[in-house]
Structures are given as C-alpha cells and as structure tokens.
C-alpha cells in the first residue's frame, strides 16, 4: 500500500478547496428560504402557529386576507406528542414557543396546570361559547375562564365489514352482549378473522370505552386536589368484558396504526373497528382495496335502548403564555375555529369532524353519502354520537403519564401476564403515586 508521501498532498489541497466550496454552497442551500421567524415585526404583527393539520395554509391565508395587519407563520412541529415535547421544552426554557399551538383535548389540563395557557375569555371567547357542543366547551373552560378553542372531535362509533358479517350470518351488534356473541361466532366460523382488534397501546380507546361505561377517572376539585379513579366501577366493567374476549381468543390484540394493523384492515383480518368520527374518512384512505364493503353503526350499548357514546381524539387551538401579542393570538385562534367559511372548509378539505352545532346539523354535512360505505350517510351516525357524549368527563393534568402507564400495563395484560382488570389496578396505583410525587393531594 502506498505511503503518505508528498505526491498525495497535492490532490489533497485541491480536495480541500472543493470541500470548502461545497460547504459554503450547502450552507446557502440549507438556510435559503428559511422562515422569517427571527425578523422583528415592524408594523404588522407576526404570529407563529404550530399545527399538524395538513394543508392548513389555505385557511391561514383566509385569516391573513381578513386581517391585513397580522402575518401568520405556520409551522408543523410534529404530530401529537412530538409537538408537545418541543412545546414543553420551549416553555421551560422561556423562549421558542409559538403564539398559538394545536393541543388535543386530553392535554389541555396538563398545560393549564403549569400556567402555560392564556385565559382568552378577556378577548371575547365566551361570545362564541354557545355555538359549540357542550362537552367540547366544558373541556376547554373552567367556569368563565377559557383556555382553548375547540377545533374538531371524535365521537365514537363502530365501523364494520358488511360482507363478512353477512357471509357468516351475523347480525350487527347493538349491545355489548350481542358483540361478544358475534365475536365468538365469527372466530369459530373462520379462525383467521376476528370481529375486532383490541389495541393495547391506545389509551384514547381504553379511556373512551371506559367513559362510555360510566367511568369518570379524574376530578380536579381545585388546583391542587384531585380524585383518581382509573379503576372505578365503569372502568372495571369495561375491563372485565374485554378480558373475557381476550382470554377466549376471539379478538386480536395488535397495536394499532402499525404496518401490520393496516394490512389487517386491508386483508379482512378485522371485521370491525371501534373508532371515532374521523375514522370513516381515514379508513377510506388507508384500506382502499376494501371500498364499498364497510358500514357504520352506533357504538354497542351496555343496555339495550341506551344512547351513550364517548369521545376519542379531537384538538383545539390554545394561546401560549410566551406570546407577545395575546389579543392578536386570541383572535387568530378564535377566527380560525369559528369563521363560518373556514370552519366549513375543515369538514370538506381535511375531513375533520366538527364541534360547531350549526355544522353538525347542516344537511349538506349530515346527509353526505359515502361511496366507501356503500352510499351510507355516515355522518348521521357520528353526528348523533356527538350529542351523546357526557359533559362531566375530565382529563388529568398528567395525561401523558397515564397513557404511557396504560400502555405498559395493558401491554402486560394482552401478553397474558395479568388480566385487564389487574392492569387497571396497577395503573391506578402508579398514577396515585405519581400524583402525590407531583404535589397533588388525593381525595376520595
């Protein structure tokens, strides 16, 4: 092998020059067109909005057209917990947080407890209160104080494969008892198919199902006192039900929103999906090969004739305390959520399920026929569910911890190490400990 003598040095020097030029070029490329976040506003106010809803540019431009003195810098800082991580570190560091951020319903108390959200009631938020479904407004407000504006929601229902149920002569279940019977019959007839999948990693579904069964796990008495009841009678009733099905092996238990799960939806492994109002459009995009075979129906009930649903998912826009222009930021949040044209656009462009009463009763929205569901007017089912969501449900101020612990414990349950009920007891114990560590007083 040649040694490092001087003939090699010459090409190296040339290489050095090329490398330098390349670096400069790359730096220019990397910083070209960088957002004008660092520019100081001179005259018009510039606001930063963090949201992961796709194609939001159109609605943001509509806002800017109506407010010539406000410029909006739209940033997608990640989806869900990815954004919350950045948001929290920025809020802790004292700089870097946006003026307005998309925050899901279940995370509002955890941002409130650290004082990170601005009370926008002083900017007229209560004027639009009556236009929203009650349970959604209840989750963003505390008495007269308003901490966020509701955006979209996810009242729960059931989507099922009409062809699979028909093939095996199974009636569409309307109660959970009927659901259990159907699950057993289907799996016995075809061991490769399950009536549905019970996801072990979906705290939102677990909570929603408990919610429907009457569970009210959290109640914030005041800023420092809280009740924790993750294993209350409603939750346990729900847990024991699914425990039975899991033990019998008539429902599968794969994590949802994974590659394998999509394949399951596409290939007829799951005959039904316990989902929320954003589910129909989502499914039509992810399981194209099954078009025309699905239908929607209300969530099975615990007693025949009841009409109880719950909510899974949905976001709001909140103003963070780091904003230097709270009035404009509040205006941005409220306008984007409430302006009639803009709000309507969310249902047709991004297919978000509305929380505004006028949209929920709008015939154009309600009577829309969905090809993917054989022409069914799916929004009627979920629209009805929207009014069947209990108003008194509250989230904890540390919901990430709760969901993460649920994931750990329910994971152990589906792999046979404990029952689902025991998992709930474990989550209860760990959450109570955590709440106490965080300085809360636990009451009964």
């Amino acid at each position, binding site marked *: 092998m040649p040694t*490092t003598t001087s003939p090699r040095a010459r090409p190296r020097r040339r290489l050095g020059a090329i490398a330098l030029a390349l670096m400069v070029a790359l730096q220019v490329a990397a910083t070209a067109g960088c957002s004008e976040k660092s520019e100081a506003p001179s005259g018009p106010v510039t606001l930063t909005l963090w949201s992961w809803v796709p194609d939001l540019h159109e609605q943001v431009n509509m806002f800017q057209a109506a407010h010539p003195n406000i410029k909006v810098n739209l940033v997608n800082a990640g989806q869900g917990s990815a954004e919350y991580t950045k948001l929290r570190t920025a809020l802790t560091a004292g700089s870097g947080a946006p003026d307005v951020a998309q925050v899901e319903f279940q995370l509002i108390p955890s941002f409130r407890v650290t004082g990170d959200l601005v009370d926008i009631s002083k900017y007229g938020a209560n004027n639009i209160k009556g236009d929203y479904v009650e349970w959604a407004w209840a989750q963003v407000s505390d008495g007269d104080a308003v901490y966020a504006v509701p955006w979209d929601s996810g009242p729960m229902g059931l989507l099922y494969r009409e062809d699979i149920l028909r093939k095996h002569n199974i009636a569409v279940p309307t109660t959970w008892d009927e659901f259990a019977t159907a699950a057993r019959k289907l799996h016995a007839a075809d061991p490769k198919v399950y009536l549905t999948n019970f996801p072990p990693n979906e705290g939102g579904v677990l909570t929603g199902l408990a919610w429907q069964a009457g569970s009210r796990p959290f109640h914030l008495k005041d800023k420092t006192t809280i009740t924790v009841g993750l294993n209350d009678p409603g939750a346990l009733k729900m847990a024991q039900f699914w425990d039975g099905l899991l033990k019998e092996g008539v429902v599968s238990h794969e994590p949802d929103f994974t*590659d394998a799960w999509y394949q399951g939806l596409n290939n007829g492994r799951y005959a039904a999906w316990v989902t929320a109002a954003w589910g129909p459009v989502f499914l039509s995009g992810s399981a194209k090969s099954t078009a025309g075979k699905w239908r929607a129906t209300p969530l099975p009930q615990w007693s025949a004739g009841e009409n109880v649903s719950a909510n899974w998912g949905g976001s709001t826009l909140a103003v963070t305390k780091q904003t230097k222009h709270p009035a404009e930021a509040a205006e941005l949040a409220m306008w984007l959520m409430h302006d009639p044209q803009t709000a309507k656009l969310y249902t047709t462009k991004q297919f978000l399920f509305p929380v505004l009463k006028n949209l929920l009763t709008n015939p154009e929205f309600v009577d829309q026929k969905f090809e993917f569901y054989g022409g069914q007017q799916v929004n009627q089912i979920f629209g009805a569910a929207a009014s069947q969501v209990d108003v008194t449900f509250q989230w904890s101020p*540390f919901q990430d911890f709760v969901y*993460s612990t649920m994931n750990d414990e329910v*994971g152990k349950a589906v*792999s046979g190490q404990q029952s689902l009920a025991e998992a709930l007891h474990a989550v209860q114990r760990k959450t109570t400990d955590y709440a106490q*560590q965080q*300085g809360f007083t636990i009451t009964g």
Partner: protein
Amino acid sequence: MSMGQLVPTTSARAAAARPRPAPSRAARRRQLRGRTVAPYLFIAPFLLVFVAFLFVPLAYAFRLSLYADRLVGGEVFVGLDNFRRAASDPAFWSGVRRMALFGLFQIPIMLGLSLIFAILLDAGVVHLRRLFRLVVFLPYAVPAVVAALMWGFLYGGTFGPFAQLADKLHVTAPQFLSSNWMLASIANIVTWEYVGYNMIIMVAALQAVPRELHEAAAIDGASEWQIARRIKIPLIAPALVLTSVFSIIGTLQLFNEPQIMTAIAPEVVGSSYTPNLYAYSLAFPFRQINYSAAISFVLGAVVFAGSYLFIFLTRRRRR
C-alpha cells in the same frame, strides 16, 4: 512494529544530517516558550467543546438531580432524595437486569461472529476480501431509524416476509415482536449494525501480528485453526477487550433501537424497557426532568462499574 512507520525514514535521517546555522539565544528561548505553550493551545479547541458540551451540561444535570420540579409547588430542593428513589426503583433496575441479560448473550455472539469473520478474512480469500469488508461494514452506515424500520417490516407477525416464508414451508415462524422474542429481535438488529464495525477493528489488529509468527507456526505444521487459536487471538487480546468494553457501554446505554420498537410494538417495549429509555420517558412524557437526571447519573455509575469490572477481570487473566 511495522504498522506505524508510514514515513520513509530516509528523509528524516537526511534532514537531521544536514548542516544548519545555530539559532540565536532569543530565537531558542522563543522556541522553548512555544514548545511549552503549544500543547495547551493545541488542546484548547477540544477542551473548549468538551467543557461546553459535556462538562457544563453534566454539572447542570447534577444540579437538576438535587431538585424536584413539581406540577404543584414548583421547584423544590430535595437533596439526595432522587438518588434514594432511584436506588430502589423497580422500573430502573428491571431495565438494568434486562440489559445485563441482553449483553450476556448478544456481546459474545456479535464479537464471536466478528472474530470469525476477521480471522477468515485474515487467513485466506484474497479476491472477495475488499467486497466482504465493505458489505459487512455497510450496516454501520445505516441510521438506527432506518435499520429499525427495515427489521420492523421484516419481523411482521402476519404479513412480514419471514412469517410468509414460514407459512409456505408449513412451519411456524417465531413471533419476533412478541414479549418472548423482543429482546432477541433487538439483539439481532444491534448485531447486524455493529458486527462489521467490530470486525474491522479486529482485522486491523490481526494485520499487526507479525507475519513471521504465522510462518514459523505453519512451517512447524500447525493448521490454520491452531494458528488462529494459539497465536492470533491471544495477540489481538487488546482489541478484543476494547470492542468488549465499547459493547458493554453501548448495551447498558441502549436507546435508539428500543425507541423505534416502541412505535412498532408499543405494548412490548414499555416506558422502562431499558434504563436509558426510562430516563427519556421520565424527562419527556412523565415530566420529571430532575428524577430523570438522577437516573442518568445512576446509570452512568452502573456503566463505569460494569466496564471497569470487565477490564479488571480480563487484566488478571491476561497476566
């Protein structure tokens, strides 16, 4: 050793032999001062970065670990409470035990494979050597995100290629993403990523073994296998210790691969699957930055202990 001499010594000797004028006293003093100051100046840039991005953050982390930032009550000084809590935290220690088990199997297998490859490369096949070295080393260049993505797809239970192949052959494939197999599945990914890297280190060490020793043994009638066992392996012992220590450190600090696995199999890889993952969960979803800092320190202590224990044990045996 022949390895280090990359400069033809002739020019050095020639340079030394050339007659030159004697430098003045002032010049010599300047030179001497330059010589004493030089090392500090040369190290300064490194030290600057070291202090700024290791020492200061570490000190800050230590300060954090002495406090608790509560949702109710704000920041409070708690002294060594966090460390006391860490010492008896089942979530932390179960993660440490899990990593010890992981390392006990994965490290010998990976280093064993690397060693076999290295010896095979060193012993024989001239044509494919370059290609083999490159191909086996390639996985090191792949980001952990992409590696976990690829293996995640391959491991898929119903629709992954392995499962489908097994189906065609009428055997049952193991459920790679189940809780029984997850540790082994992650071990496979880590092995895949690093076997080439460790192999290269060993190949380099093998190349430094003087050829005369092989020749002598070969002439004496020793087989390749015997040469490998009696001569090569003992002589590259330092390289083996080095790769082992790095592997131990890496295992105890395992984070990237399990973290990606939480997206694919969240119900198996929970929030405290590895100690580092636990520290991350504490800092981010659990919002207990202070306790997370304490856990990181305790983990660091475990890593120190594990590494030095290993070095100590192997040093005694080598002597």
